[in-house]
């Protein structure tokens, strides 16, 4: 069986693992000790984990986050979510086809009372916002419990291999997400007043103001916080299209988890839906992991993400289809191809514009919704509560870090601690970091072609300033008052010392350096490069591209620098013609053959589009009810079972609301389904105190 592991990566270290054996349908397979069952199966090329009890359609990984139950397998007789449970030596894993059999138990286990713990502050979520808040509280000596559902802290930061945007001063801009996670984790773990519970998921905020937490994935504990700080981040929106439940259709978070955390290759050829930062970055991560990116569709006329992220992807050779949408993912047991079409100004597909591409995976990145239900419940139940980061408002992780810091102070203030007033400038910075990408300016080209000069291929107003801190002479300037302004080089052609720090350090890989000193007709252009060193050789001829991805011809590689200070970004120097030297922005990495459309488009004529993927309820069923006059989603739930499944309407609720919008029903006339605990499914024995620890003291 082929090994689907990532064995080299330009950014991520490949750790040494102890190999263990487990069984899939009685067949022995190899796994890495400590990885999830899902990762082990993926590493062995197995992506169909079971079949749906309603219609027998294949099931596999969808959220990779413990939220849905699509990845359920039967492991050593127990139904388990394979994305959350580690594989164990000699474990026997079987697909979950239909309903699992509950293992027979003849003796009641020992059950203990559920522990109740009182604490001044409970922080839910150990991502950028929660960690920053906890650090601020910890500095003030406030006792906190911080719970996070993952094995390690950092939230989605741990999946981000790219260098962050934002403000160097306020939020570690220029540092990679994974490294920010490490820094924050180290800082928070050093604070004695903060208790950290990893693998601990919040299940419910109750009306008696207690918070139910599944500690270490096994012990149910009730926490009585004086103040609750909710930093639960965001969940991905999903999209209704034919074939959207096929294994191989993932949310961006799931894909990044498999690739960047589990270091498995879920795909050889990926297609991306959504041109926001999440989709663009996921595309870049895929390329870095050696996964081909066939293309990206964005329904709007322009990508919503940062232009530098888009440019980066385009320069790697990924075609971006704006004003296009996905019509279907096609295949029988998993994705084999995808069909897209152009959309009109009302976002309706235009017949005759369909194109199909061969691919094995589709990544959905069509926006995020705040995970704010715990905060809502806390407010409803009169718990003193604060909300930070994406759970409050969707923005970049840099904004979440700063939002957490502010909320940490607000919590301290609410506790009556003498922290003084929070400086108004903080709120300003917070707002700047949250801002959406702004105007695009004409790219400046240097007037004089002589000496050494950096070229800033960065012409959109975004909150980002690391370049200004990189130049040892301070020649790159970003307005300190508002870091959204585009940077400018204030030197002339003879003051840059060509140290290359700006080239290697720009998070957008948007700075090149043109050096005319040796030969003014054949200047040397330094280009940032974040792929494996092995992909390039000296004297190779590579395709060079401008900012927008236009082909500028070929150039010969003269040097490749991999300095420690460059933090894994390589600098590649090519010799270029004088005419194009300042326009060069990148080196093409992906061959064109992978991105070619198929000769004929694949029309997917199977069942109607699935809206509720837990209960397999189609858009047709729900639309018929809306047309009958149903406005209460609770009634739709009653009749169809949509929103009754394992995920608790986390995926379908927004899709159902979208169906209402399509039918012309204004949102204020639609009744939302009632929200009830639990956040995820948990065994009954856990609530009975089967794994409870003794009361301390």
């Amino acid at each position: 069986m082929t090994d689907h592991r990532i064995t080299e990566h330009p950014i991520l270290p490949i750790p040494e693992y102890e190999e263990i054996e487990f069984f899939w349908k009685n067949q022995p397979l190899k796994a890495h000790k400590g990885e999830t069952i899902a990762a082990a199966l993926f590493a062995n090329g197995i992506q169909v984990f079971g079949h749906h009890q309603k219609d027998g359609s294949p099931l596999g990984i969808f959220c990779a986050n413990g939220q849905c139950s699509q990845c359920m397998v039967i492991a050593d007789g127990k139904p388990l979510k394979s994305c959350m449970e580690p594989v164990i030596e000699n474990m026997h894993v079987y697909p979950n086809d239909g309903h699992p059999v509950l293992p027979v138990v003849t003796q009641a286990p020992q059950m203990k009372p559920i522990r109740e713990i009182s604490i001044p502050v409970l922080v839910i979520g150990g991502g950028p916002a929660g960690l920053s808040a906890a650090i601020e509280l910890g500095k003030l000596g406030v006792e906190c419990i911080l719970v996070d559902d993952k094995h390690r802290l950092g939230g989605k930061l741990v999946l981000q291999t790219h260098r962050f945007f934002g403000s160097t001063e306020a939020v570690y801009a220029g540092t990679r997400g994974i490294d920010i996670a490490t820094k924050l984790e180290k800082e928070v773990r050093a604070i004695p007043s903060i208790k950290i519970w990893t693998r601990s998921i919040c299940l419910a905020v109750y009306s008696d103001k207690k918070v139910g937490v599944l500690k270490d994935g096994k012990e149910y504990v009730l926490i009585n916080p004086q103040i609750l700080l909710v930093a639960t981040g965001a969940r991905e929106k999903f999209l209704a299209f034919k074939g959207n439940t096929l294994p191989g259709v993932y949310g961006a978070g799931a894909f990044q988890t498999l690739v960047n955390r589990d270091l498995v290759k879920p795909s050889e050829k990926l297609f991306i839906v959504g041109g926001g930062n999440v989709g663009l970055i996921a595309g870049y991560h895929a390329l870095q992991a050696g996964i081909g990116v066939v293309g990206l569709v964005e329904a709007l006329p322009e990508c919503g993400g940062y232009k530098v992220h888009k440019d980066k992807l385009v320069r790697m050779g990924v075609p971006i289809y704006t004003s296009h949408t996905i019509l279907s993912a096609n295949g029988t047991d998993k994705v084999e191809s995808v069909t897209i079409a152009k959309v009109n100004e009302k976002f309706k597909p235009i017949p005759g514009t369909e194109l199909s591409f061969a691919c094995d995976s589709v990544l959905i990145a069509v926006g995020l919704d705040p995970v704010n239900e715990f905060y809502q419940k806390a407010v409803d139940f009169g718990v003193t509560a604060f909300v930070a980061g994406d759970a409050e408002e969707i923005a970049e992780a840099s904004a979440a870090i700063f939002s957490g810091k502010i909320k940490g102070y607000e919590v301290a203030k609410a506790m009556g601690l003498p922290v003084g007033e929070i400086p108004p400038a903080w709120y300003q910075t917070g707002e700047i970091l949250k801002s959406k990408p702004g105007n695009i300016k004409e790219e400046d080209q240097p007037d004089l072609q002589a000496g050494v000069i950096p070229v800033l291929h960065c012409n959109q107003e975004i909150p980002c300033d690391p370049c200004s801190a990189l130049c040892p002479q301070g020649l790159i300037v970003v307005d300190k008052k508002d870091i959204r302004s585009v940077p400018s080089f204030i030197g002339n052609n003879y003051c840059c010392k060509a140290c290359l720090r700006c080239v290697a350090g720009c998070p957008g890989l948007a700075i090149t350096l043109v050096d005319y000193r040796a030969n003014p007709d054949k200047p040397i252009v330094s280009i940032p490069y974040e792929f494996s060193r092995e992909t390039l050789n000296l004297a190779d001829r590579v395709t060079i591209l401008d900012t927008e991805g236009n082909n500028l011809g070929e150039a010969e590689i003269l040097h490749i620098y991999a300095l420690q200070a460059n933090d894994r970004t390589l600098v590649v120097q090519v010799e270029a013609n004088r005419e194009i030297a300042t326009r060069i922005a990148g080196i093409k990495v992906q061959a064109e053959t992978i991105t070619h459309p198929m000769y004929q488009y694949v029309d997917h004529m199977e069942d109607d589009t699935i809206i509720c993927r837990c209960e397999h309820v189609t858009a047709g069923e729900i639309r018929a009810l809306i047309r009958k006059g149903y406005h209460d989603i609770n009634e739709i739930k009653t009749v169809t079972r949509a929103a009754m499944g394992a995920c608790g309407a986390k995926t379908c609720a927004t899709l159902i609301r979208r169906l209402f919008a399509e039918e012309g029903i204004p949102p204020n006339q639609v009744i939302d389904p009632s929200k009830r605990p639990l956040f995820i499914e948990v065994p009954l024995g856990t609530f009975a105190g089967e794994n409870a620890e003794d009361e301390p003291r």
Partner: protein
Amino acid sequence: MSNHQNYDVIIIGAGSLGTPAAYYLAKSGRKVLVLESVPSVGQGSNKRAIGGIRATHSDPAKIRLCLRSIEIFSNFKETFGDEIEWDPCGYTFVAYTPREEKILKDLLTIQKSYGLVNDWYDRDEFLRIVPDLNPEGLIGGTFSPGDGSASPLLSNHAYYTHACEEGAEFRFSEPVIGMKVKNDRIVAVNTCCDEYSADIVVNAAGADAAEIGRMAGIDLPVRPDSHEAAITEPVARFLGPMIVDIRPAPGSSNYYFYQHLTGQIIFCITPSPNIWGTDINETSSFLPMVASRMINVMPRLKNIRVRRTWRGLYPMTPDGFPIFGWSPQISNFLLGVGLCGQGFMLGPSMGELLTRVANQELQPDDDETLGFLSPSRKFEGQEQLK
């Protein structure tokens, strides 16, 4: 605002009783209007019922009514064409102490006299019916194979669809805010948006029944108390009947669970003392309490995963029996209130009975049933299997 006068019957409440009653009344030719405060059908206490349907009661009225309900539920698909997830799974009441053994055995006499098939089984025989029960300390229990379960959501919604087909009108998101009474008759029912009148006004307002009564100037001894319930993930069928454990324990007087046709375990606990009021927000005490009780009786349940919890209201009466019949004070006010958490199982047969009362077409047994449930009774007895 205009007064709409062209109705025979106004039903307040599109829930467990109001909806089937609307169907049977409309089918009998009556012009029916149903007023409901929430946006769609069965969204009050009906959808919070766990779906158990039993005739295994302790009094002739409910035994008779529920036997008829079971007849309706079990033929629902043939009669109406709707899938309501009816499952003739039966009910078991378990006895782990001599106290329950005595209560259950004592009740058999009256239950059998009203045609109920219910029998006592000693430990080993009982374990053959429910193999996964904890045998330790088990004395035995009763099993009534004729009882069953169905989906309250689907049943109530089916009744709604058929009531509409029969011409009943439903007004949703239209709470009743007042009534005009003249000469001991309700002459108008006022909602947030309109005024209606009819020959007969039915109070089927569930947990709001006392408040609706007050609008007509009468006191109804109906007081909601709150019970919490939950549903699990679906698993392959392993559990036959509903399990009811009436042993009191700290915090609860009994609890019950069954495996629904979808494969999910649904369970509920009766708090003790009662939690009076209309609060239906989730509490932290429910799951730990019910989970340990359930696992003690059925250890196999320890690995099933709980999916969702909710809380619903039991409109209780002083003696634990429904209040049904004409109001002694208001001559055109028909009461179907205080169903004590059994509205779902009583709904179909009580909807029929309500139609017979409204149409003055009583059957021979009805007088006895109505006598037991009379609004003017003294509320001195006490239901033993609440």
